[in-house]
């Protein structure tokens, strides 16, 4: 792939900056950054299919929640430690994503969106009702992870490494021939078919990747909060990554992360002033959609275009 030096250099510089932050910031702020990183990965996993594949999923929390519950149940029942639990959870989420994707991709566009939402809600009902296995509406609490992980600073570095690797992997996927075929499908499905792409498989594979990365984010969340609860699977959770991607800028790579960071900041700042923070979130979305459809990072990227490699 062709990219100028700044495009690869800046993310590394950013990572070094985050590494140093881990040394100086107090735990309170590290926790916030952990949350941003986890949600950023969740948003990026959706961006993979929504921004680059043109597949609007309204049920992406199914995979975030599935990953979270898989890790939580593995921690509770098998005595696995966090890292193997997350790895196993990711594989399981991938299998689940394959099944869900195979069903949902029989439909396209809006029907696809509705199907993903319906299936995620099915999972929500299952999780909410199955007391013996998922703890029902109580969720699963009081999970133990290895003592080393309970220190916020240590967990900060762990999350940084995992999320960093995932972002790198997503970048590699997007810059591979597979990634470019995905963009081509988004822009003009008919022509891409004529060029010999196998649409269904192509989309399904992207969907499974997205599910797995969301599953990793869910697993990281369990390692952070030591619990899983039904709201992680709920449809309001599915809306969050969509809002983050739009907030940051759809069709951009870093928009998802920028959106997650802004989302967490907004929730903290506005949530402190008023209990009606969702009202302001809704109003913000309306304004963005109406007047700044490219999102905040999309706007910045446009201004920085002469200096940065634009990879769309």
């Amino acid at each position, binding site marked *: 792939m062709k990219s100028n030096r700044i495009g690869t250099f800046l993310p590394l510089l950013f990572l070094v900056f985050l590494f140093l932050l881990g040394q100086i910031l107090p735990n309170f702020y590290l926790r916030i950054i952990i949350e941003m990183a986890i949600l950023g990965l969740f948003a990026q996993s959706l961006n993979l299919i*929504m921004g680059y594949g043109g597949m609007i999923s309204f049920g992406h929390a199914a995979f975030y929640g599935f990953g979270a519950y898989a890790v939580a149940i593995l921690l509770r029942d098998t005595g696995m430690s966090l890292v193997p639990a997350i790895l196993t959870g990711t594989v399981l989420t991938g299998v689940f994503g394959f099944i869900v994707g195979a069903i949902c991709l029989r439909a396209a566009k809006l029907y696809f969106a509705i199907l993903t939402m319906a299936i995620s*809600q099915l999972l929500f*009902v299952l999780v909410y009702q199955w007391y013996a296995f998922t703890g029902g509406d109580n969720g699963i609490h009081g999970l133990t992870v290895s003592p080393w992980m309970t220190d916020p600073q240590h967990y900060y570095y762990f999350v940084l490494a995992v999320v960093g690797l995932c972002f790198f992997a997503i970048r590699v996927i997007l810059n591979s021939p597979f990634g470019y075929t995905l963009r081509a499908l988004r822009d003009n499905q008919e022509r891409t078919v004529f060029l010999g792409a196998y649409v269904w498989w192509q989309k399904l594979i992207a969907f499974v990747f997205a599910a797995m990365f969301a599953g990793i984010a869910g697993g990281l969340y369990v390692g952070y909060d030591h619990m899983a609860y039904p709201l992680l699977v709920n449809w309001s959770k599915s809306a969050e990554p969509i809002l983050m991607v739009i907030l940051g800028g759809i069709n951009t790579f870093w928009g998802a992360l920028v959106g997650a960071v802004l989302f967490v900041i907004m929730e903290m700042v506005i949530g402190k002033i008023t209990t009606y923070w969702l*009202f302001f979130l809704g109003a913000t979305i309306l304004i963005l*959609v109406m007047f700044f459809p490219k999102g905040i990072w999309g706007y910045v990227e446009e201004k920085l275009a002469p200096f940065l490699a634009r990879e769309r």
Partner: protein
Amino acid sequence: MEFSDILDIIVGGLTSGMLLFMVAAGLTLVFGVLRIINFSHGAIYMLAAYISYSVMALFGNAPNTYWMALLIAPIAVAVLGALIEVFLLRPMYNREHLMQLLVTYALVLVIVDATKFLWGPDPKMVLLPDILSGRIAILGATFSVYSLVLILIGFLTMAGLWLFLNKTKLGHIIRAGAFDPEMTEALGINLKFIYTFIFSLGAWMAGLAGVLIAPLTTVSQGMDSSVLLDAFAVVVIGGMGSIGGAFLASILVGLGNSFGLLWIAGIAIAFTFIVMAVVLVVRPWGLFGRPIK
């Protein structure tokens, strides 16, 4: 089990089914014509229920002021619906689907928080008028009059929508617009007006359902999302855009829930989604929908 018990279960199932249909019908109508998934449908339903409470409080909170609420609240949200369509949705029609979804989703957040701000977090009671609050004996079982009235309203709504869409000129235009917007406009029909009208009608129906359900439960936060998800399930089962499909799916889900409760407590929430899962696997476009790739 006595015959009267079975009758009781059937009436209970039909009542909840018809209430569900009242919500689902507006949702599927808007989808069928505008091709928009209206997430704010549930929020509008809740808003109308709150407005009905305030209307009754304004007229002295006597049970018989319910009729005023039934008249005013749906019209109020229909006006709101028309405003939403004109100012927020109309600029979105030539943008991606995602942007339209986001607008209706953002509206959920705004409307829900607005109701919380205006009416507070406490549940509100809405009283039934005297004439509807009695019970009536039929075939050895006693039913609440209101249940029977709700079932009747559900069937009348279905009949009314069918007659409207199939037997009136405006109905023909609406169906033509849903089938092929470009050609319909080329024939000199103002689809902008049709879209506003349909969205407003959808809001009116959501409002009507909200006011109708208010006396059965309390008006409270959260009533929007629970009904919206059930209504979505019904719309998906019946086939998106199909009003008849939504009607049959509502009856199926209503009866299934009330009979299912006999055997397994707690199946009520899951039943709807289990049916939906089965339908999705067999026919992803729903019982009466058309496959669109």
